[in-house]
C-alpha cells in the first residue's frame, strides 16, 4: 500500500472520529464546563465565605492535578467504590469538571475587570445584584473573556485525545488503530495532527468573528 493510498483510506475514519468523537465531546464538555464555571466564579465572588471556600478548593484541585489523572479517577477509580461509569459519560464528566475549574478563573477575572462604576450605575437605577450581573456586568465581561475562553476551548479540543485512554472512540483512537494495523505510525499520526490543526484553525476564525461582533459597541 502506497502512502497516498494509506492517506486516502485512513482520512475518512480519522475525520469521522473527529465528527462523532472529538467535536461532540469537546462541545458538550465546554457547554457544561461553562455553566459550572459561571456558578463557581459567582461563588468565588460571593460575599458569603461558605460559598467562596468550596469554590476556591475546587479550582485549586482542578488546576493542581493532571487532567489524565482526573480522567482515570473517574473511569478507573470510581468503579472500585462501586460507581461504574461508561467511557463517554466518564470523559464528559472529567472534561467538564476540568474546563469548569479553568474557565471559572477566566470568568471571575472578566467580571472583576468591569469597572466598579458599572455596578454602581446599575444599583443607582434600582437594580439588585442579580439584575446588575445579568444585564450590565456579564454582557461586558463576556467580551473580555472571549479570547481566554477560546484558548480554553482550543486546549480542550486537543485534550480530548486523552479520552482514547479510557476507550472513547474519537479522532486519536481511530488513528492509533489504523497506525497499529498499517504499521505506518509517522504518516497516520501526522494525519491525525493535521486534522486537529484544521479544527483549531476553524475555531480561531470563529473566535475572531465573535470578537469583532462583540467589539462593535465597546470603546477602544
Amino acid at each position, binding site marked *: 500500500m502506497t502512502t497516498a493510498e494509506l492517506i486516502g483510506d485512513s482520512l475518512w475514519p480519522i475525520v469521522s472520529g473527529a465528527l462523532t468523537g472529538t467535536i461532540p465531546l469537546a462541545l458538550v464538555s465546554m457547554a457544561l464546563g461553562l455553566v459550572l464555571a459561571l456558578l463557581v466564579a459567582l461563588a468565588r465572588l460571593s460575599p458569603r465565605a461558605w460559598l467562596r471556600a468550596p469554590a476556591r478548593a475546587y479550582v485549586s484541585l482542578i488546576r493542581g492535578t493532571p487532567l489524565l489523572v482526573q480522567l482515570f479517577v473517574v473511569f478507573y477509580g470510581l468503579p472500585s467504590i462501586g460507581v461504574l461509569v461508561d467511557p463517554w459519560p466518564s470523559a464528559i464528566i472529567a472534561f467538564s469538571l476540568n474546563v469548569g475549574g479553568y474557565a471559572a478563573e477566566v470568568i471571575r477575572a472578566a467580571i472583576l475587570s468591569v469597572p466598579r462604576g*458599572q455596578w*454602581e*450605575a446599575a444599583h*443607582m*437605577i*434600582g437594580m439588585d445584584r442579580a439584575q446588575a450581573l445579568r*444585564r450590565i456586568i456579564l*454582557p461586558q465581561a463576556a467580551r473580555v473573556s472571549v479570547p481566554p475562553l477560546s484558548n480554553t476551548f482550543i486546549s480542550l479540543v486537543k485534550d480530548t485525545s486523552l479520552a482514547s485512554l479510557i476507550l472513547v472512540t474519537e479522532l486519536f483512537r481511530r488513528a492509533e488503530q489504523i497506525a497499529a494495523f498499517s504499521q505506518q505510525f509517522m504518516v497516520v499520526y501526522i494525519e491525525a495532527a493535521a486534522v486537529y490543526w484544521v479544527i483549531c484553525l476553524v475555531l480561531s476564525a470563529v473566535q475572531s468573528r465573535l470578537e469583532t461582533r462583540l467589539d462593535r459597541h465597546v*470603546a477602544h
Partner: protein
Amino acid sequence: MSRTDRTAPAAPSPRPHGAQPLLRVRGLQKAFDGTPVLRSVDLELRSGQVLALIGPSGSGKTTVLRCLNALERADGGVVDLDDVRVDLGADPTRAQLDALRDRSAMVFQHFHLFPHRTVLQNVTEGPLVVQRRPAAEVRAEALELLRRVGLDGRADAYPHEMSGGQQQRVAIVRALALRPQLLLFDEPTSALDPELVGDVLALMSELAREGWTMVVVTHELTFARDVADQVAFMDGGLVVEHGVPADVLGRPRQPRTQQFLRRLLRGTELPPDDPTDGVRTVAT
C-alpha cells in the same frame, strides 16, 4: 418632568418651594476601615431647592451623596427623604435602603453609562426593567428628554461615539427618567474638557429653574453662587459652614472656608454678580 408630574413628564413644572424639608439628614456618620470620613453631617433641603456641597477633596462630600443613594451604607445617622425615614445606625433592612435609593438618582463624575447599550437603552433600562413601567410611555418620555437636552437623533448611538459633555447629558437624562424626588450630582463636570463644561452646567441650571430638588457636589463656584439656594462647606467630615451662597461664598465666617475659597480662587476671580440673573427664593 418631576416625579409627581406623571401626566406631562416632559413639560417644565416649576414648583413652589415646599414648607416641609424634602430631605433631612441628621448625624450622618461613615468610616472606612476605622477612618472616619463623615463625622456627623446635618443637612436640610426643601422641595425645589438646590444645595451645593463644596469643600476640599477628602472632606466627605461625595460620601454624603453615596450614602443618600445607598451606594454606601452609613454607620449612623437618620435620613428623611420624602416619606421615607431610615435610621442608619439601627441596621436598616435592604428594603429600607432600597426605598431611600428609589427616591433619588445620581449623576456620576465619570458618567458610568452602560457601554454596551445605546443611549436610549441607557435611559430606559431603569424605568423598564426595574420600575416596570409601560414600554411605549417610557420610550416616549426618554425620547422627549433626549430632545430637550439637545440629543435628538442620537438615541441609537453608543456612549463611546459621543463627547464627554454629551455622555454626561445622557447620564442626566438617565437620572431624570427614573422620576426621582432628589437629584444627586457628584462633580458632574470635573471629568469634562473645559469647553464642554458650559453645556452641562446650563442644563443643570435649567433643571434647577424647573423646580428639581438637587444636591450638587461641585468645584464650580460660579454655579454654586448663581444656581444654588444653599451652600454647605465641608471639611474633615463635617459641615463647617452652611447658608445662602452670598454668605458662605461672599462673606465666609469660618477660617477654613475662607482658606478654601482663597485657594480655589487663586489667580481667578468670580465674575461679578449678574443682576439680570433670576432672583431665587432663598431659604434662611
